[in-house]
């Protein structure tokens, strides 16, 4: 089989998967009486009309990038972290608590401490699932999902009780939100008049660092080896259990940091539904970006666009914003299917045979010594 055929096969499979995903999403849109093409067009072009829309895309791309970086570390290490949502929430709680408790600290020290606290809390929450998997063989997908539900309850409990803004209690409105963070714990705004904050630079810097970590250090090589072929890695002296726990610590840390950055950069206090879906969307971003930082950054921008666009369709076309969940679901299904079909050598052979038969209706014989074999 020629390289050209292989590329064509991959492109065809990818296109078929994309079309299938759009078809399933269109069915859902048709069911609620919306026009699929108009809706997709609004989602994809609506946010690009003005500067504010573009800045909002980037605002959403920041937590998506951070979560996806963590998810990609865990997936590459052979442990599926579905718990980013919960890890973000504990990160938000911890960074808010630290920023409020240490408000008297001088400015330059407070912000890093708050961000670190968020990352540490997320790391513990994720590491717990990693430890459960390494020590007690608890399926990490189930345990991280359960930890999501537990974190969600912890979040509402703390925001309604111990951490609620005293002002809310005084006025009696009782909105579940924390006190506003001191200014020293805020991330700077990059463009006046928008919510775009310096967390964007942090996310880009960390993307580069994750690439260095995974592909340019022994530590990263060990993680990837443990994920790629567990037994071989163990035979080569990698402590697989340890690398599972470390990968989950890192993955949780990134998700916790995403939560802390979201507080420090956008909302400046812990409010309900801050993490709304970033944890799950981050998984899709990681897969869409090929579990590689160079893919994750553009993928995060694309999904940021989708999130902002879905908010717009809610206002303009009356399509509920959780249409994004449907899109994310079909995109996951399409990506994992297409990935397997592309890498299935037998599928390639079958396709090649079919193609030959179609191209030469009379013959049906294979071309002599398959001309392009070996040459790129």
């Amino acid at each position, binding site marked *: 089989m020629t390289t050209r055929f292989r590329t064509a096969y991959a492109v065809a499979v990818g296109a078929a998967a994309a079309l299938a995903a759009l078809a399933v999403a269109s069915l859902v849109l048709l069911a609620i009486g919306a026009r699929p093409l108009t809706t997709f067009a609004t989602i994809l072009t609506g946010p690009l009309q003005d500067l504010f829309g573009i800045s909002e895309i980037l605002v959403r791309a920041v937590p998506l990038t951070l979560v996806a970086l963590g998810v990609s570390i865990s997936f590459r290490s052979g442990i599926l972290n579905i718990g980013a949502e919960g890890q973000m929430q504990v990160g938000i709680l911890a960074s808010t608590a630290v920023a409020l408790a240490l408000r008297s600290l001088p400015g330059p020290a407070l912000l890093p401490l708050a961000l670190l606290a968020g990352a540490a809390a997320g790391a513990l929450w994720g590491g717990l699932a990693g430890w*459960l998997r390494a020590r*007690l063989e608890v*399926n990490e997908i189930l345990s991280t999902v359960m930890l999501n*539900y537990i974190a969600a309850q912890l979040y509402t409990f703390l925001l309604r009780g111990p951490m609620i803004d005293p002002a809310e209690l005084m006025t009696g409105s009782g909105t579940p939100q924390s006190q506003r963070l001191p200014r020293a714990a805020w991330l700077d705004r990059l463009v006046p008049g928008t919510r775009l904050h310096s967390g964007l630079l942090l996310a880009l810097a960390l993307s580069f660092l994750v690439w260095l970590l995974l592909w340019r250090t022994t530590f990263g090589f060990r993680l990837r080896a443990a994920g790629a072929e567990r037994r071989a890695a163990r035979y080569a002296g990698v402590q697989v259990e340890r690398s599972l726990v470390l990968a989950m610590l890192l993955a949780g840390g990134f998700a916790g940091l995403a939560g802390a950055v979201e507080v420090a950069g956008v909302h400046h206090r812990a409010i309900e539904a801050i993490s709304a879906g970033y944890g799950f969307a981050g998984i899709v971003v990681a897969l869409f970006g090929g579990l590689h930082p160079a893919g994750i950054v553009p993928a995060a921008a694309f999904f940021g666009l989708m999130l902002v666009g879905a908010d717009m369709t809610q206002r303009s076309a009356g399509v*509920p914003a959780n249409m994004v969940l*449907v899109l994310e*679901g079909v995109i996951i299904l399409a990506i*994992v299917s297409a990935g397997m079909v592309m890498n299935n050598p037998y599928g390639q052979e079958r396709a090649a045979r079919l193609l030959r038969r179609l191209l030469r209706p009379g013959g049906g014989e294979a071309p002599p010594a398959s001309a392009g074999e070996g040459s790129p």
Partner: protein
Amino acid sequence: MILRMLHDVLALGVPFSVALLLAALGEMFNQRAGVFNLGCEGIMSMGAFLAFLPSHLLSGGPLAPWAPSAGFALAALSGALLGALFALVTVTFRAPQGIAGIGLQMLGWGTAGVVFRHFIGGVTGIPGVAAWPVPGLSRIPFLGDVLFRHDPVVYLAYLAVPACALLLYRTSWGLRVRAVGTYPRAADTMGIRVARVRYQALVLGGAMAGVGGGYLSLCQARMFADDLVAGRGFIAVALVYFGRWTPLGITFGALLFSLAQALQLAIQVAGIKFPYEFAVMLPYALVIAVLALARRSRMLGPSALGKPYDREIRV
């Protein structure tokens, strides 16, 4: 007092177990055939919404008595369709099952939410299914209230336990399912069509999960909300591990969880001071504990669980 509370907990816990029981029995067929379906949660969400829909639309009309049956039929149908979709992705395309399951969960959950918000939006109650006390048996003191004063679906769900056991252990289809999940290559050699049996198991499991979700909206909550299922699909998957892939073990597990849930409600009703959120956390924490304790049982599981099969690929 204690007896009164025990009575209430048991009488509540038995119907609470139905959704978990049906979904977990369905998941048992999936896993026995070698497919790990984490999309159960999404299937249950769709089932819960579609079961609710006819009762909502037909309420007050002449067709209202038929609404619950139509709802369950829709729930089963949607579950079967989503099961078939999952089979396409994991059996035909051989996609990794864990992450594909999360995709199916998002698809089902998201779709139910979108359609619900578009057509209904708020909390609206439905009449649900009336209780049908079993004549005679329901008058037994204590036991009658606990076991025989529920809606008919509860009795049917518990009849499904022996039915599933018969299907799995005493029919040739059940044998094929177990063969395909244990050693697909041998099954293939014997002329069993591995992919076809897996499709059938996923369709059956999906339909059962759909009905389980339908029970939640139609009989238990008597309304629908986005997060009505609240992780029960994932708990059902965990119950299959806990129940060691047997109908009886799964029933025991489902009862354990529903009794814990009923106990939590009883504690709140009794006015014992305990933050509500921590009470809600309990079942989820219990899942993790149960999975940690049941880790030895993994060896009893279907040995081809989670492994895609392709006749042409030699591993």
